């Protein structure tokens, strides 16, 4: 009996320690900073495009005017300041302010404040523009929510330049627990997204008989590249169909082990790249790839960024010693920030 009690206690202790490590290990900021830049740029572009036909989507005579938007969401717990805007001048003022917020967010200036504003604005547009949205908006909202939690302007940002200006030396990137929490939330949200994306497909017939990808290829409204020649090779269509549904369904299991993570991420790039190029959803495919970057370690991101930075410095004819003192260099980081491994 004592052995059973002891084993049970040991299991609970191990579980708590695993939870502690998973959520509360301080993490370097490079991955989240890169997601901020790319996700912020996507937010900026998304809202820039709304502006190309602002009155058609948000004006008093929009496709879905405010009264209709409110009727469609009657009883919902959603809110948007845009529901109360009828003046085109005010609408444009707020829209330009939104674009400025997303630009500052991308550049990483006053990030702690701007990230919250970006979150508020993103959700306001999502709730107002019900009926004109697709998967991109779901990913945009997800990233805006989680990036708000952590100091995602810690590196690769104008905020870092401001700290240099104030202190006179490059500040070492700091590891934060909140950075880890935001990263984990993106990772788990993706797992849930893909799990339900996969199992919902399993309820269909075409995802089983191998013809589902044809249903996308032969859909003229989605098509951006004519792939109907694949009709000559039904085995390719079937293989793409089966790989897609199995990758999506089991993503939440294969993304975690070190040996299967690179393959899972490579398939993510392939699937979403295919969606981007073949189905005309470049933004959605790109946004999903950006979100998947949450599974790339900050050390790898830093190494790639430093490599690019060093190559650019060499091309400009400066010495290697100068490169060691360039922003975010690995040498500078090693001197001052022995961050824990993920």
């Amino acid at each position, binding site marked *: 009996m004592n052995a059973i009690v002891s084993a049970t206690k040991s299991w609970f202790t191990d579980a708590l320690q695993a939870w*502690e490590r998973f959520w509360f290990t301080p993490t370097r900021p490079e991955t989240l900073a890169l997601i901020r830049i790319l996700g912020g740029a996507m937010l900026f572009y998304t809202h820039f495009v709304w502006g190309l036909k602002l009155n058609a989507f948000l004006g008093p005579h929009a496709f879905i005017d405010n009264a209709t938007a409110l009727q469609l969401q009657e009883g919902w717990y959603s809110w948007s300041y845009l529901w109360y805007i009828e003046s085109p001048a005010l609408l444009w003022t707020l829209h330009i302010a939104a674009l400025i917020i997303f630009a500052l967010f991308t550049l990483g200036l006053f990030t702690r404040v701007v990230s919250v504003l970006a979150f508020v604005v993103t959700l306001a547009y999502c709730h107002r523009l019900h009926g004109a949205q697709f998967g991109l908006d779901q990913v945009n*909202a997800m990233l805006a929510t989680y990036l708000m939690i952590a100091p995602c302007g810690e590196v690769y940002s104008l905020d870092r330049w401001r700290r240099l200006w104030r202190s006179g030396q490059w500040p070492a990137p700091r590891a934060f627990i909140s950075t880890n929490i935001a990263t984990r939330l993106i990772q788990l949200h993706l797992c849930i997204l893909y799990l*339900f994306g996969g199992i*919902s497909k399993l309820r269909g017939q075409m995802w089983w008989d191998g013809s589902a990808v044809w249903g996308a290829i032969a859909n003229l409204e989605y098509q951006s590249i004519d792939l109907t020649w694949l009709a000559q090779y039904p085995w390719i269509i079937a293989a793409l169909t089966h790989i897609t549904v199995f990758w999506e369904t089991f993503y939440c299991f294969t993304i975690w082990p070190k040996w299967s993570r690179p393959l899972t991420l490579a398939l993510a790039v392939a699937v979403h790249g295919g969606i981007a190029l073949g189905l*005309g959803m*470049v933004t959605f495919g790109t946004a999903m790839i950006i979100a998947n970057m949450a599974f790339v370690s900050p050390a790898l991101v830093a190494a790639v960024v430093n490599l690019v930075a060093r190559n650019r410095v060499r091309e400009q004819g400066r010495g290697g010693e100068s490169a060691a003192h360039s922003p975010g260099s690995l040498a500078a980081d090693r001197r001052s920030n022995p961050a824990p491994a993920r």
Partner: protein
Amino acid sequence: MEVSRTNSDNNSPPTWSRGFKLLVSALVAFHLAAVFIAPMSFAVRPGSPAIDPLRAALAPYIQALYLDHGYAFFAPDPDPSHLVEYRLEFADGTPSRTGRFPDRHEHFPRMLYHRHFMLSESLNTYYAPPEAPRFPASMPAEERAQELQVWRTARARFEALRDSYARHLAAEQGAASAEVHRLRHDFLPPSQFTNQRDPARPYKLDDPRTYQDLDAAPALLPSPLPAPTPKFLPGISPLPGDTR
């Protein structure tokens, strides 16, 4: 909030108190529950006695944070796409004009085209038939009243959406009125793209015979393309809500 020391101060990583970690753990668990329950509630439609109460409790948080998604992309099966066709009538004697969206030639960049595409898909998603549903005589009166109310709400929402589109199109192009119809664009089987195609049937993606006006009077409906025969594995019956 977060005790974080720069690593130039000392080499110890930032720490949180146990109490704060407990609070954050509870918040994280709550949030992830909401993220999970949202698509789960879509998956178990029309409902599950285990999921429905959780969904109801978390609905304010789920909807406020824009988490209310099923993530059923191209699921359960890729569907035909839906467009909107409209006819504009002018008060000044200008001949009536028809149009259709999305239109990849008119709507650029691609994201703008896709926004119009989502509008046309939404109109079809919100569709509810003009006639009230018929119920079996054995259905209890209370249940019948509930179903009727559901239909009335759905129909009102569809009409509101359709009429909003019509008002916008009329205002945008200076017309007195606009009539909006839903189009379904069926996709063709692979056989029509091989040398075994049937020349009597459509073999181009934009063949006019592949477009069906879903709101046309029955007498005006063109001969529909034969619907794909549902295929199910032996012994497996279609799930509720399957359209095939």
